[in-house]
């Protein structure tokens, strides 16, 4: 049982477990996600997904269905309502159905897994996503990825790299993927599967074929462990952050794949030096790093970058407040540098 030892806990960063799970399942193009709960749980999430997808020029509505529970469902139990929703969705032209639970159905004890285990003619995959059980947004992502991984059987290793747990709601999700794919290509490696970003249900079967899994962030380590256990695939716990982070990422991937990465590292190093030279106008400028919402690896990468640029960080007096965001790879670092330049010359 989970409990909150601090009843005044005002954290706003944990996020809804359901939203995390939807950010994964809604990226299986030919599947439907059923949200088993009151209509509001779905509406809020559809709005969020729609808005973030539009940001990424992806102007279609996510395939979400709500069981739209009312008080009667809560009093009498809502398993039958769920069964009807699944049957209805199964009658459409879809390859699979994902069923996400909500706080209220876990409270009244609906046996969601048992209803999903019945025969509907297509795979029906339950994902436990009740937030009050102690989960955050990340737990929702992890639960969904682990549930989807269970649908993939063992398969022959054909090489290639899996990208695990991309942050589908982040603004730069495509750019970050492109950058990681570019870094892999420096080693002659290709992507086997984006698990899960804009794929079809059948593609999930390829999950076990990769020789290496690259996780988007260390929060996905539980998923990496499950995949390692299930398919014997090793993993790297994070996308690369910043300058030296990118170089060591290339080295680590090369090592994991038994490739000599020295040439790739040298080439990338030259590229980074040329890039930094292009931002020499920032040298000696007074600045402070705004890392209110940043993670540790993002802050470390930003501090390194500020030092390389000869920015004067933390000096008294007037300074520019520089946004610290995820600087994924060399290209991501360049995007952050452009933001810094705009802030400094503003």
């Amino acid at each position, binding site marked *: 049982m989970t409990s909150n030892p601090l009843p005044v806990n005002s954290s706003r960063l944990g996020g809804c477990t359901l939203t995390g799970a939807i950010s994964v399942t809604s990226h299986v193009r030919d599947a439907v996600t059923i949200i088993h709960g009151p209509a509001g749980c779905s509406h809020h999430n559809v709005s969020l997904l729609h808005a973030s997808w539009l940001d990424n020029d992806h102007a279609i509505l996510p395939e979400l269905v709500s069981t739209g529970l009312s008080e009667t469902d809560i*009093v*009498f*139990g*809502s398993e039958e309502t769920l069964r009807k929703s699944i049957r209805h969705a199964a009658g459409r032209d879809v390859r699979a159905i994902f069923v996400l639970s909500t706080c209220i159905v876990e409270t*009244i*004890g*609906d046996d969601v897994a048992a209803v999903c285990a019945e025969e509907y003619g297509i795979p029906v995959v339950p994902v436990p996503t009740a937030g009050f059980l102690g989960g955050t947004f990340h737990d929702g992502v992890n639960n969904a990825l682990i549930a989807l991984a269970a649908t993939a059987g063992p398969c022959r290793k054909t090489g290639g790299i899996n990208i695990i747990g991309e942050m589908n709601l982040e603004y730069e999700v495509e750019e970050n993927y492109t950058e990681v794919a570019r870094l892999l290509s420096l080693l002659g490696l290709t992507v086997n599967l984006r698990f899960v970003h804009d794929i079809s249900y059948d593609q999930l079967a390829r999950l076990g074929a990769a020789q290496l899994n690259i996780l988007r962030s260390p929060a996905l380590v539980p998923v990496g462990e499950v995949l390692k256990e299930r398919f014997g695939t090793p993993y790297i716990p994070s996308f690369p952050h910043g300058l030296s982070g990118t170089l060591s990422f290339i080295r680590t991937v090369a090592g994991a794949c038994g490739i000599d990465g020295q040439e790739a590292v040298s080439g990338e190093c030259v590229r980074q030096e040329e890039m930094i030279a292009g931002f020499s106008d920032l040298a000696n400028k007074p600045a402070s790093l705004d890392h209110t919402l940043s993670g540790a690896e993002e802050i470390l990468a930003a501090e390194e970058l500020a030092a390389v640029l000869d920015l004067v960080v933390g000096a008294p007096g007037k300074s520019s407040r520089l946004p610290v965001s995820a600087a994924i790879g060399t290209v991501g670092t360049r995007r952050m540098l452009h933001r810094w330049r705009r802030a400094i010359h503003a």
Partner: protein
Amino acid sequence: MKQIALYGKGGIGKSTTSANLSSALSGRGLSVLQIGCDPKRDSTRMLMQGRFIPTVMDLVRERGDAALSLSDVVFTGYNGIRCVEAGGPEPGVGCAGRGIIATFQILEKFGALEGDVIVYDVLGDVVCGGFAMPMREGYAQEIYLVTSGELMSLYAANNICKAVQRLASRAKSKCRLGGVICNAKGQPREEELVSEFARRVNSAMIQYIPRDHVVQQAEVNRQTVIEYSPDSAQADHYRSLAQRIMENTRMTIPTPLEIDDLESLAREFI
């Protein structure tokens, strides 16, 4: 209008006591409404010639609450007593507590909560917030505990004291413990024990109801004792209970016992 609720361990005789109490109250010329607040739905059966009346929750499920009216949910039984069963989900699914809350909201909407006396007959244990609903503001202000001298029955009664104490501490709550009804199993010194228990939880035993075979005889004839055998001594006990409840002015905030104290109390009277 007087609103009272009977709580106690499952199987202790709350429904039998409630139905006989309602009968006795109606015999005093009072307009009585009895509400069964238990998914088992058998509170009012003896007032309805053994009939299981449709429950509020069943009717909501079948027709939707928009299609219901007062006459659909209230049934008139023995001596004009109005009967309502809250009902609830099948065993093992859903949320019975929410069902009680929903029933109360529907009854309020229909203006069903009227008359001289309302008797709420509530599920044995106050397992969640929903079953404390009858004790909340605007509903029963007087709680009566039904218990025998058995330890498990006293234990359940003591737990309900905790719920009453908690609710009584809320700012606008008028919920108080009205007394303890001893529905005897027939064990030695039972009346003394229950009386002492009532005293220790800061209340009083309001009525001792001895064990009597006439209760079973009435039940197999689908009647209350008051209806089946109005001249019996048992019927007098229920009439006495009705009178004492109507005259009762001693409302207290209970002081529940620790389990060790409860056990040593029971040991004193073995």
